[in-house]
């Protein structure tokens, strides 16, 4: 049942994004973090409609434009060109963060450097002395959005666990993450710690545990 081989196993980034999208209810207001989370928009299940918020001041964000329709003043939080869907609205930054801080956004999908077993998130700084600290809207999002999903590779590029007993990097927020989608598993944050709710095809519980820095709990059936 277990699989301890090292070659590419588990979900691809696209499959992770698809899996996240499946868990978002029709009609949700969604904020997608920069990077991998942006992929989620490509996998909206048939019959569902999500409305995307980008914290720089647009609700109803659409996909990237064709080269002919680029507008350097219509961008997302990652400063990449986007479009506005019918029914969109522009607003200023204070109003945009009313949506975030006021708890009006249903779901935010973010990347992570580390997630602790009790849902602490570190995703803005490694705390290195020579780093330029930059936080953007991450702390506002985890403090205000109703549900926080993290989407991340299960380990760092050099194989270190990103799911840890306690974050060693500076926190973005404490006890803020609800669920983690990795290439290996879907993991809920419970009062007891990490609970594995789903394993990627061909991936065993023990293998995931071996890649995780804190104890995993099998979901009780």
């Amino acid at each position: 049942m277990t699989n301890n081989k090292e070659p590419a196993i588990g979900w691809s980034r696209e499959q992770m994004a698809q899996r996240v999208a499946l868990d978002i209810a029709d009609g949700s207001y969604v904020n997608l973090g920069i990077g991998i989370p942006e992929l989620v928009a490509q996998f909206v299940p048939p019959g569902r409609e999500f409305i995307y918020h980008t914290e720089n001041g647009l609700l109803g964000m659409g996909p990237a434009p064709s080269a002919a329709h680029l507008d350097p003043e219509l961008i997302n939080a990652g400063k990449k060109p986007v479009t506005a869907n019918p029914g969109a609205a522009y607003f200023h930054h204070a109003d945009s963060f009313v949506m975030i801080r006021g708890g009006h956004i249903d779901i935010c999908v973010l990347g992570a450097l580390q997630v602790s077993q009790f849902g602490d998130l570190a995703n803005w700084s490694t705390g290195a002395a020579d780093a330029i600290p930059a936080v953007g809207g991450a702390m506002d999002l985890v403090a205000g959005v109703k549900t926080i999903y993290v989407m991340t590779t299960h380990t760092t590029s050099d194989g270190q666990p990103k799911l840890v007993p306690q974050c060693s990097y500076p926190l973005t927020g404490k006890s803020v993450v609800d669920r983690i989608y990795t290439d290996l598993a879907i993991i809920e944050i419970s009062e007891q710690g990490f609970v594995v709710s789903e394993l990627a095809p061909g991936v065993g519980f023990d293998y995931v545990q071996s890649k995780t820095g804190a104890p995993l709990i099998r979901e009780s059936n």
Partner: protein
Amino acid sequence: MINKVVGGPTEAVADIFEGATVMIGGFGEAGSPIELIHALIDLGPRQLTVINNNTGSGHVGLAALIANGQVAKMICSYPRTLNSTVFPELYLQKKIELELVPQGTLAERIRAGGAGIPAFYTRTSINTPLAHGKEVRRFGGYDYVMEFGLQADFALVKCRVADIHGNLIYNKTARNFAPIMCTAARCTIAQTQQIVPLGGIDPENVVTPGIFVKRVVEVPAPLLESKLVSEGKHYP
């Protein structure tokens, strides 16, 4: 897919419950969602806390809701206006509670409630009876009063145009409290004179983005409170 349009005022307000806190848009009759208020009278929940700048006039709209015994407490800045007799009478009989809040503080408290700000400081009301019992704190050599954010279970507002996602635009000074109330209520219900298709409102001109609105109901020709009052109408 997202379509927030509901059939009519009755359906729109059907889940407003006894003891609910309800923000109601309008400054006097400008922006008063009178059809939604009348539907709330038909529904009949009692012990409501109502947040509005005033207390209605005559015996229609908000005044009729109060006259019907449904309002336990008003939070407002100016409870007496022309033709306002219902609230004053009940207040003097101690049958209704009043929390009097300066108009700008009321607006800011509602905005704070919608913005996830639990409390803020303002100079307004400092050294007056309306600051009694409130925390006073000094910043930069001046005293300020601490005020709390206000939230509600429901907001009832009136607008001019809405789309099916709940994006709203208003008419002139009827805008007043509606945009901030939409942000501060768990369930915002907007009556609109017109519903347009998606894209019918320029994204640059949206005043209330749809994220703040749960239900939209079309009332193409809303009643005019001042006209009803001058005709001596009572609701119901």
